[in-house]
């Protein structure tokens, strides 16, 4: 059986669709009090909690990144305590990476003396969007992360492609969005850290598309194509052998 057929199709991509919804939900502001221009910290903590809730549910259900398949194929059930512990670990790791990202923001020119809360909230959001997929899919060691995120050689596994897709799409868009900060257009959305966060969300959406294509659509299409080619060839061979046998007859 080809690799892709191991994924039960109905569960596939659920987390991606949910991720898009979480991404969109966290940006939509249904209430008046929650406004990114007036109170960015409050707004960003709301988006962060939506995103974290999304990851927490998927982690708890253990269905993030095609995990459903392995569970179906007879993996032992995990206890609730272990699942909760995993959610907590993911949260802690996300927060730790957010602290690192906050340092990176400051190094790249974020204000040092003021707006600490804004910087931290932006870092937490970026961490949730870019780093958490990697935390969830990769083994916790430097070599695995390096291989997943930095190597360009072919033959990466699906979780590696998954982590790299989210990480680089989000990071690159966030980086590029920083160019809006020094422009002199004087728009309210140019205030720190709104362009950064906007870039991160946009980048995550692009990453979603990329991952969906790279880990899901393309491999399955390829495998299907190979399958049909294989069958065609088989049929041709059968026909040829039939003709040969006819001739022999």
């Amino acid at each position, binding site marked *: 059986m080809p690799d892709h057929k191991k994924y039960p199709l109905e569960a596939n991509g659920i987390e991606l669709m949910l991720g898009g919804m979480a991404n969109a939900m966290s940006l939509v502001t249904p209430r008046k009090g929650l406004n990114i221009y007036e109170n960015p910290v409050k707004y960003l903590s709301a988006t962060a909690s939506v995103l974290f809730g999304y990851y927490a549910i998927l982690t708890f259900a253990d269905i993030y990144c095609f995990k459903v398949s392995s569970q179906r194929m007879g993996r032992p059930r995990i206890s609730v305590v272990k699942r909760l512990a995993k959610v907590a670990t993911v949260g802690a790791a996300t927060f730790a990476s957010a602290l690192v990202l906050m340092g*990176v923001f*400051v*190094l*790249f*020119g974020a204000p*040092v*003396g003021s707006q600490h809360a804004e910087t931290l909230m932006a870092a937490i959001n970026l961490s949730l969007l870019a780093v958490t997929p990697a935390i969830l899919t990769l083994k916790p060691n430097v*070599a695995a992360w*390096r*291989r997943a995120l*930095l190597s*360009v050689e072919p033959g990466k596994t699906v979780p590696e492609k998954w982590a790299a897709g989210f990480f680089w799409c989000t990071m690159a868009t966030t*980086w590029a969005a*920083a*160019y809006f*900060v*020094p*422009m*002199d*257009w004087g728009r309210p959305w140019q205030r720190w850290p709104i362009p950064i966060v906007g870039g991160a969300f946009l980048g995550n959406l692009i990453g979603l598309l990329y991952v969906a294509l790279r880990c899901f659509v393309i491999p399955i299409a390829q495998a299907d194509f190979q399958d049909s080619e294989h069958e065609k060839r088989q049929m041709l061979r059968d026909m040829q052998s039939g003709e040969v046998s006819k001739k022999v007859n």
Partner: protein
Amino acid sequence: MIWRRLCVLAVVVLVELVGLGLFVKGFFPYKRSIPGFARPQDQPPDIGRIGALDSEIAPQYDRLVVMLVDALRNDFVFGNNSAMEFTQGLLREGQAVGFTAKALAPTVTMPRIKALMAGTVPNFLDAVLNIAESDTSSSLKYHDNLLWQLKHHRHKTINMFGDDTWLRLFPDIFSKTDGTSSFFVTDTVEVDNNVTRHVRPELERSDWDVTIFHYLGLDHIGHLAGPNSPLMKPKQKEMDDVVRDIYQMVSHQDKARMEHSPGAKPTLFVLLGDHAMNEIGNHGGNSKLETSTVFVFMGQGIRGQPFADRGKNALSALLTREVPQINLVPTLALLFGVPIPKNNLGLPLHELLDAYSDTERLRMLQLTASQMFGVVRANDPSVKEVDVAQVARMAASDCDKASDGLRCKYVAALWAHSKCAPAATSASKGLVDGAERAYYDFMEQANEELSRAFSGYDVPAMAYGIAVIAISTLALAALMQNRLRGDAGIINSKAKRLALSLPAVALLVTYIMANTSSSMIEEEHQFWYFWVQTMLALRIVTAATTGGAVRTGMQMVLFRIVRAWNQTGQNWPGEIDIRFYLNSSHATHMWALGVATVVAFNWYMHWMHRLMRQRFGLPDSFDGGSSSPAYRRLCAWRWIFRAAFAYASFGALAYQMERNRGWETLGMPEWAWALIRAPMPPGIAAMARSVYACVFIIAVSSALSTRLLRLNCKQGMVGAACQTAALDVLFGMVPLLVLLSRPHNIPLFALFAAIFVLFFPQLLPGSSGCRRQEEHDPAWTGRHCLRPSKTLVQFCLLYASFFALGNSNSLASLDISNSYAGISRYSEALVGVLMFISNWAGPLWWGTAALASTALAHGMEQAEFRRRLVDLVTAAHVWQACTLLSLSVVVALMRTHLFIWSVFSPRYLYQVAWFAGYHVLFVTVGSLLWL
């Protein structure tokens, strides 16, 4: 091979220079102005009184006093915190009329004076020539101006005291002068005393008609310490006292004169500024603060609206009552009854013409309008002349509005004027108002259209220039592609892919994109800061060893400190930065940091000396060991080198302390300071000269000791001698840069040096000095496509350091205060060189650092090193040519853009300086000398 490539490179760069010349000739043309001077007999007949014999209007004033205070911003006079109480009192009581005068960029003195006297919209080249002091082509000797008119048509005696720019602009106008140079900006007291001492004696005499006082002190205070300096209020008070003196003296004299002879007319007294200043006291750009200066008209016959509200805020309405600065020209010309200068684009200030009758006022407007119509015709020869005598018979609709808008408006105004003619004095108010409005309508539109088109570009020359630059860019790229060896050009033909690293390509593409945006040009420092950190972050991510990653992280932290040092750019120049603290509350720390920097450099030189001994295995590697004469000579030269370095670095610091009174800040008693600076020659210029001499000694001793090392050391160590020499040059130039920098920037050089040393573990204090083989991550061999090379990071640092020292792409940030170190008289070439060094100190250091870096990486083999060096120079030229080409195209396309003079042109001038000064003279000639 190398020489052939260098020859080709030189030819291509020369071609590029020709292209640049063509483009600049087309882009910065001398003004298209009408030659000759306006004469009264050329004035058109009064359309309101055709056939009347005497159409001349009697002048309202006989004498004029102009008091020009350099950089007088509007809030210095009208604001709440102004110390100019007398002037404010006059304005409140309606004895004076005040305006906020809007200056045009470039807001520097010479173009502003030209605008105030000729009424023209400035040519950008004036800003550059303002710095090149001795230029005479920019003088107004052959251009029509107000002073010429006053002198030749009213026979006025004109005196001038103050800034000597006037003397250069108007060589034969003044009867009595006393010029002061505006270039020694550190003096805020003497420049003004020099003017004030003439006020009383000269005004008390009776042989003058026009007197001009130009005060510079306020501008100097702005340059030194900004508009909020504690010196500012006393200076305003001082200026206010001068205003009071002049006002009282003049009104007293007027009374006496008019009693004496009934025909005498009063004196007009104008207080004005040429330009203003921004938050940090600089000027040159186009921001609101820099362009808002003042007009205050005082004297008999001037009646303003008294301000009913006598409170502190009463005058704040004047802050928004804006008129263009050039409106002064027609106003004064009309008030004094002289022809309006031919190239004037200003409109008369109708508030000051109220004393005239309706007929006279309409006549004045007709004169201004017909003068302005002359300018319109000069700029567009297709516009037909208007025969004033015929207009009355023409119908108002007798012209084609679509094709000929301005002429049509002019005719309409004349027609309206002729309609209110017959009834003359008893004409209904409505007709007169209509005619006046029609005149202003025409003049406003003419002013707007002409200011936009006034500096006509030579588009074909610009196009040829761009073409030549494009060809040379392609040639440079081809040169880089065919490195004659052909192993790795830009495009690796064997592997069919770009051999350039991905970050380099991304950098170039984003930079070209950034050059098209005015805010990215204004904030170019942000671009470079961001890219330095991006490059360093990429180096961390792709680092082969943990040690390398940690060192790069330290570089990032150090660079973050560098970034916070000088806030620059145009959008947030007022943000608090480290410079602000060091210059205000923490001045002691500034000097302490300066001392620490110099001590650290000397300690590091000492350590480098030990490193060198270790590397070369001295003295055993010499024949005869420590007793050989060659070794002794080497020791002597090295000793001289270190001593000269110590003397030069401490001397440069002492010079800064002496000049900026740093020892007082540190709380040192005078005798202690005298003791410390005893080894230095007396006199500040001599101190600077002794530093120059020591830098020269450093260069000589380094060259000689390198030669000794090369001749005597083992075969394999010849390249090492070259590395030592490169490091010698890199650190030996620091005292020179310290000497020519602003004192708060001295510690930056230590930070730069630390960042540089962190690139090379073998240079770190404590390392063994031998090339350690770094243990590589086995899973991580080979270069990653995202990893920027050291040279690329240093390249970004090179550009970033330019901005980190406080420069920007605005002419206002050009630092001229340090260009006079050790110079006792003005010499254009010397000051130019020193100005370049003081402003480009960061790029000069990092450029040398790139050389040293190449030597350290590839210096062990001479041939390889030379090849790399030529590659580096070629790459720098390719980068430069790409930038120049993209900027030329952008500037050519945006030549009608609103920001062309305030943003794009200064940027282009900076690029010219980068190209001619930095890339051609320093990089190319410098590395040729090195080869």
